[in-house]
């Protein structure tokens, strides 16, 4: 029996040489551009460092962290982040699921629908936000023109708290729906056809079929896509930055735009570093939830 011995040798060679060789470029790059800045940020977060006052640089330990917990602006930004993220992700999951069911059907012309459906994903988010700013333009925008043509008075979209938040969420959904739908569609296609057909033979109607068969099967996918999107949305900097700049009067200021403001408007890099670290801690927590969900769905990351 030469085969098993040969195979053992195969895997040994693989392990010894390739693991290192294959991983090196990735780890080098990640170490350089992600790990190093991360450590740097950690260090920065313990400093008093305001770029415009270099004479005051000092090590302050946890002082920035204490400040972050009592900073009313951070509390407000955290609240906006929750509203924005929950609103956007919730709607993306609901509509993404509907879209995935729709695109899962084979029909003449469905290919075209699928392609057009992905269009928003292809528009860079900065550009998308500029386009939407033009759509929401108070006087010359098409959004108000459409509303007025059906008798609804014009809305001051970006100039007041509630509608500005709605606008930001709407644009985030627009940009993120294609990817969400794609993830859910991928999950949908993994449901064995027999399961669905069995239910059909049992005489289950379309709606029952969805609730009783498809949804339970989709649960892991939904949770995972939801978590992925949660974190992505949480960090949705570009859209907020261009569409409202966090305004009006900070009404759409989310955590990441706040960090940017602290860093590049006040040049308080020590404090911005602290906020960044706190956000990363939060992200790590969310990620570990995601990882556990992955494991529960049977695709464990095995040691």
């Amino acid at each position, binding site marked *: 029996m030469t085969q098993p011995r040969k195979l053992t040798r195969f895997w040994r060679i693989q392990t010894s040489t390739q693991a290192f060789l294959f991983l090196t470029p990735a780890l080098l790059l990640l170490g*350089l551009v992600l790990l*190093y800045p991360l*450590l*740097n940020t950690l*260090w*920065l977060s313990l*400093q008093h*460092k305001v*770029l*415009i*006052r*270099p004479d005051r*640089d000092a090590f302050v330990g946890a002082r920035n962290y204490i400040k972050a917990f009592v900073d009313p602006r951070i509390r407000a930004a955290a609240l906006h982040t929750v509203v924005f993220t929950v609103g956007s992700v919730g709607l993306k999951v609901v509509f993404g699921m509907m879209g995935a069911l729709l695109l899962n059907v084979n029909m003449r012309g469905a290919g075209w629908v699928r392609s057009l459906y992905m269009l928003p994903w292809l528009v860079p988010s900065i550009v998308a936000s500029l386009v939407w700013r033009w759509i929401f333009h*108070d*006087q*010359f925008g098409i959004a108000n023109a459409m509303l007025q043509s059906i008798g609804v008075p*014009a809305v*001051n*979209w*970006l*100039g*007041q*708290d509630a509608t*500005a938040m709605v606008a930001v969420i709407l644009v985030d959904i627009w940009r993120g729906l294609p990817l969400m739908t794609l993830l859910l569609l991928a999950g949908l296609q993994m449901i064995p056809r027999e399961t669905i057909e069995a239910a059909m033979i049992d005489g289950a109607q379309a709606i029952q079929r969805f609730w009783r068969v498809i949804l339970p099967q989709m649960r892991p996918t939904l949770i995972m896509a939801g978590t992925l999107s949660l974190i992505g949305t949480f960090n949705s900097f570009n859209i907020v930055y261009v569409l*409202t*700049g*966090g*305004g*009006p*009067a*900070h*009404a759409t200021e989310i955590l990441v735009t706040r960090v940017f403001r602290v860093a*590049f*408007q*006040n*040049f308080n*890099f020590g404090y911005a570093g602290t906020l960044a670290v706190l956000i990363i801690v939060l992200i790590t927590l969310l990620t570990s939830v995601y990882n556990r969900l992955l494991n529960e769905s049977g695709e464990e990351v095995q040691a």
Partner: protein
Amino acid sequence: MNLPVAWKRLAATLALTGLAAGCASTSSSEAPSGPVTVNVWVMGDGVWKDFYSRLANRFHTENPDIQVQIDFIPWDQGHEKLITAAASGSGPDVATDGGRWTAELAAMGALEPLDRYLTPAYRNDFVEAAWETTQWNGHTWGIPQGFTTTGLFYRTDWLRAIGCEHPPQNWQEFKDVAKKMTQHHHFGFSLVGDNSMETTMCWVPFLWQNGGDLLTPDRQHAAFNSEAGVQALQFYVDLYRKDHAVPASALSTKRNDSHQMFLHDIAGMTATGPWFFSEIKREQPDLKYAVAPHPVGKQAATLATTDHIVMLKTAARKQAAWKWIDYVTNPENSQAWSKTAGFIPYRKSGLHDPNFTRDPNYQVLISATQNARAYPTLPEWPQIDNLLSDAIQTALAGKRTPKEALDDAAQEVDEILADSN
């Protein structure tokens, strides 16, 4: 790129943990043979780009030994780019900056004082209001590279339609005219209330007109939350919230939006500067409009803003850098620049240039210099500016009363000022 050098740099970088080390690294380079290069940042696109590209070419023809390498940076990004570059030692040799940032950069230790390059005759030729903004802590940190006041642009045909003979001259008339102009889809005044420094720029004249001030004379405390300041903000807020004489979108209106409202029949009045002339000529050449001085409150006042050209401390070739600054700011080029960009002359020798004085609208803005004031030159100004625009927005949004909003901002400003000593 040379690989070994890159690896050495990489190793050095990995060894670093603090940013401070990054700021300290200076690479000493051998004196290169051939022409010296001066790296310049010019803020602004469009006209800025055309004008300064051409100027750099002409300069090089006259000074073959100096090559001027210009990067154009949009104003929006200018502050951020300059500060980060200055802090990390990656800045240019010479840069344009908004005058309101100069003291901040100087306090950072990023700028080269220019006193030793100046002759009395040179400095005395600058308009006083412009020159003052370059002074901080007993030194000259920049040379004016653009100077302007603002005025009230108004639609003459709209004014006639509501039966007014003359543009509003005081606050009461201003309010009446704004209210009367407001009908259908027309509004009296396009107020800038976006979250940016433009919002502060547009409100501060009202503060001064009402007898208020930004800071106490010793510059240790905020003064804008005085009775006069609160009234001035109340007047502003009422135009928007009570009289609705301002488009509803005020809180998302930037200055360029306010220009468009004026150009396209949405607003009958807007407060802005002479750079608007060329835009009107290009977009709506038939627009019936004129410029008046800002309406007078208890007194007449307008904001004068000055752009500076500064030399960074890290400039390798200071003489060559100065040569370029001198060239840019010489009487001929200053004047040409004012004409191109839409500024008012800032060198005394150019004040009587018929190109400016012939135009009555331009004349209004030039005369306004008599009542013009500048922002205080102090390092903390950009932060104060942000806090003020926040306060104005909060009051406009109705989240806080003008008094509450200004008091909150004043408290933070006081902390900042106390902290800086």
